[in-house]
């Protein structure tokens, strides 16, 4: 945390205003561009959850991010986030706080060309769609599919080589590698010591995309996982539909090999720029911890302006005791 604060300070001190650019005034959701080398932004989200066991309000994300280009090829991004900063449980009248921020992302990018760039540091693992836009305000549902939470490491502390392929302008790739522990292990879903993977993404015209990833990682308990993932999406003027699926083979010490699968299909109907109706179906079967669930979600999203999001959804689970109502309010600055 102290290191991150020092980095933030140095970045601010190193900036000089760009001479010729006349950048537009601050616009909500696009950050405050101080210089070409320093744009400052942030976001927060709150959730209100009601089910059989709990009735609680959570200030679950409070984050600040800074990024910019230090020269024509090198850029950086720093994001600090307080997770579950405030939790108010209305059933038993307790309030918990957790303000110390964690390093959510901390990386540099060096662009050799459009065909090869390298990103080094703590970053989001480039798998699928959902994982790359993980914050509440960028999504149309308050909740994440279980697919995105428990089947692969959300973060990578390592190196990602990426770019477009020279032979096809609509085909991009990532080759990513982690060989040590995470830069900040306070906010990761799976603790790994190594992770290697490869992903491809193909644009099919203006509306369709299709892609997939494969890779393997080793957890701190020596469980070894190979994963095979596919994703596809269609974005029309009113309808969006996207889906991701993953198949895991896991070698668990003392247990042998188990197989896990997860899938979701989400559709969104935007009946105006501000209003959308969302449905999602999920299948989740995780063998290591023997977790199974089928989930149906129906939700409504209202955005008075795009970077301001108000959402409500209802979830039906295989175990009806897990059914719940979730609403949220989030803003990106």
């Amino acid at each position, binding site marked *: 945390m102290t290191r991150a604060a020092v980095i933030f300070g140095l970045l601010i001190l190193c900036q000089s205003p*760009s001479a*010729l*650019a*006349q*950048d*537009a005034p601050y616009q909500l*959701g*696009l*950050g405050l*561009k101080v210089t*070409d080398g320093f*744009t400052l*932004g942030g*976001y927060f989200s709150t959730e209100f959850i009601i089910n059989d066991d709990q009735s609680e309000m959570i200030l679950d994300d409070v984050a600040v*991010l800074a*990024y910019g280009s230090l020269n*024509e*090829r090198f*850029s*950086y*991004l720093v994001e600090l986030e307080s997770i579950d900063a405030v939790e108010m449980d209305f059933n038993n009248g307790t309030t918990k706080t957790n303000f110390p921020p964690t390093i959510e992302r901390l990386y540099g*990018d060096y*662009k050799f*060309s*459009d065909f090869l760039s390298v990103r080094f540091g703590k970053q989001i693992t480039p798998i699928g769609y959902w994982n*790359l*836009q993980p*914050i509440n305000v*960028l999504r149309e549902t308050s909740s994440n599919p279980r697919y995105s939470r428990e089947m692969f490491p959300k973060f990578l502390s390592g190196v990602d080589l990426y770019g*477009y392929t020279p032979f096809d*302008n609509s085909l991009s790739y990532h080759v990513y590698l982690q060989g040590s522990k995470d830069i900040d292990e306070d906010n990761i879903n799976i603790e790994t010591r190594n992770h290697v993977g490869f992903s491809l993404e193909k644009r099919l015209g*203006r509306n369709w995309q299709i892609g997939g990833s494969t890779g393997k990682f080793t957890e701190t308990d020596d469980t070894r996982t190979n994963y095979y993932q596919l994703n596809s999406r269609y974005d029309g003027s009113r309808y969006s539909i996207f889906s991701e699926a993953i198949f895991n083979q896991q070698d668990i010490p003392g247990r042998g090999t188990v197989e896990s699968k997860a899938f979701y299909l989400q559709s969104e109907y935007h009946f105006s*720029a501000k209003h959308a109706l969302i449905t999602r179906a999920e299948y989740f079967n995780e063998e290591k911890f023997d977790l199974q669930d089928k989930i149906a979600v129906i939700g409504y999203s209202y955005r008075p302006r*795009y*970077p301001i999001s108000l959402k409500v959804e209802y979830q039906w689970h295989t175990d009806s005791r897990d059914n719940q109502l979730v609403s949220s309010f989030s803003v*990106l600055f």
Partner: protein
Amino acid sequence: MRSLILLVFLFYSSLSLAAEYAVVMANNSSVSALDESHIRDIFLRRRNFDGDVKLIPVNLVGEDPARVSFERYVLQMDREQLNKYWVGNHFQGISPPTTQSSLPSVKVFIGRVSGAIGYVPLGMVDESLKVLYEF
């Protein structure tokens, strides 16, 4: 008579389809031609280079007719779609192209900044600019 009607129709159609604007770079740029999808990717900041040349897209501010036409015919996105796109990219550390307040200042920017690429009315194109694409 039918041929005459057809000729008149084709004449007015060609008038309505005639290009009004050009995507331009400085005339001394090594970039020779870009297709529409490449220009779209440059202004959406998905691509940053042509060979070794770092490209710097420049937009007009606000609702200037040149910008509105560029967004409609080249980017093929409306303002709501673009706003959504840039908000998502802000989280990824990518900002929209830099802006200039007027067409003359776009021309000056392109002349002074290596790799700058913008759009101006065809009537503003002179020997200092290289036309890469018309719309």
